[in-house]
């Protein structure tokens, strides 16, 4: 990694600056208060000396952004935060959920919604948040498309984003079964059978999803595993790749901003 210049430290207000030593006064360094102030800096320095993480942080956060960057550019971050919200609420919902098709799954969701403190709120966040995430993804995708931000050299990031879209829809589909009420059950029956209408491989795909020829004892735990282990892991990895490419390649200016010709190159003024 190239050596990056250090950011200038912000100037301290004069009231907070230590007064210069009086003539004849001994300059005392340290003291318990000074040591305490330095403790945090020392810890951060200790880690940074061994990891060079501050360089990564500067590389990631202190980027040049083009003129004309506007609110539409926040849709990607919004999607990221929707995903983080889903991840956090999902992890805590998993503490209460039981993937038991013989009534336990529905009962555990009922317990979360009706009995657990803030259960209805956390489950509501997860349930409505999934729709929010899908909507935000499409808005983000629309921004990238209409601003032409998918063009060279960012095509790979478009492809990764498309895969992330599909994985998010897989999350929405597999999560839909987990409450195990009538709507969840029939929506999954219909969804799995739609998968099965793909020629040649379709029947095998729907057997894989169901874990057999009929909706069976393992279908629910299979969906649960896909929903909370396989796909989230893939999404996290691909979001990492997505952000790496965004940082490496930078963002685009909006299409209505034309690059300004340098005045000394204008023919009229030569």
């Amino acid at each position, binding site marked *: 990694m190239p050596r990056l210049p250090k950011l200038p430290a912000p100037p301290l207000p004069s009231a907070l600056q230590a007064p210069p030593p009086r003539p004849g006064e001994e300059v005392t360094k340290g003291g318990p208060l000074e040591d305490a102030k330095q403790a945090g800096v020392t810890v951060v320095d200790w880690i940074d000396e061994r990891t060079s993480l501050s360089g990564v942080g500067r590389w990631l956060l202190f980027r040049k952004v083009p003129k004309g960057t506007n609110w539409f550019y926040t849709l990607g971050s919004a999607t990221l935060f929707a995903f983080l919200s889903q991840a956090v609420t999902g992890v805590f919902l998993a503490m209460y959920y039981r993937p038991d*098709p013989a009534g336990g799954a529905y009962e555990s969701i009922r317990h979360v919604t009706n009995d657990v403190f803030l259960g209805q709120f956390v489950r509501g966040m997860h349930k409505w948040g999934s729709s929010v995430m899908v909507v935000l993804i499409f808005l983000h995708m629309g921004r990238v498309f209409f601003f032409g931000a998918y063009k060279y050299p960012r095509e790979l990031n478009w492809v990764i984003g498309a895969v992330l879209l599909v994985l998010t829809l897989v999350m929405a589909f597999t999560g839909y079964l987990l409450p195990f009420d009538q709507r969840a059950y*029939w929506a999954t029956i219909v969804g799995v*059978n739609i998968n099965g209408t793909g020629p040649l491989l379709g029947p*095998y795909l729907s057997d*894989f999803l169901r874990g057999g020829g009929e909706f*069976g004892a393992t279908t629910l735990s299979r969906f649960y595993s896909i929903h909370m282990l396989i796909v989230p892991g893939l999404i996290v990895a691909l979001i990492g790749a997505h952000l790496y490419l965004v940082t490496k390649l930078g963002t685009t200016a909006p299409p209505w901003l034309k690059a300004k010709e340098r005045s000394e190159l204008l023919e009229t003024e030569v």
Partner: protein
Amino acid sequence: MIRASILFDWVADKHDKHKSKYTADRLIPGAFEGETVTRRRFMTGTAHTAGAIAAGAFTLPALGFAIGPIFKSTPHRWETVGEVGRFSANNYTPVVMTLTPGIGEAGKTTVYIRKFNPAIDTDPYDRDTPFIAISSRCAHVGCPVRWVDAAERFICPCHGGVYDLLGRRVGGPPVRPLDRFYTRVVGEDVQVGPRFSVNSELRRFSPRDPGEPLDGIGQYLYPSRPTARKL
């Protein structure tokens, strides 16, 4: 445009420069006499192979574990649904039976049963079936159809699939008739067995999922389960 002469040159070159298989002849530093693979190359290959074996040792069993159910055959179940006198030859009687035991309501389905009626069931395939058992699973995407007596139709609530008395499609999006179940009579009891699918001529096929047509090329585009056994 590539000149043809370049291509010919390259081909000729390749044959001219005959490489010896011995590393010593190829002037590789530290070569032993009679050695054909350098130690570095051998070591790299060994490390890659060991890594591939280690990764495969957990990936392949896990994958097989996940896709195993596709190739697992389930035993045929026969369920008693009532006595012979319970079913008429002119109308359907709905019966709830268990397809997958052990998961409560989710493993159950409704089956519409009537006695074999020579006036209606003229199809040669139905001749030796004592009772006709029609699955309520719609052949579109698997919603539950309902027998509407007044209309003499099976009607699907989801997307408007309509089937006639024999389960043949008369309207809506379904791609084939309703599935059926094998039936038999044991003593005085009617028993319902495994599922089978039919095409629009009521020809029998091993069970397929909904949405998979069985007419024409359909039976080849949507192969049956490798474990589906014929009765």
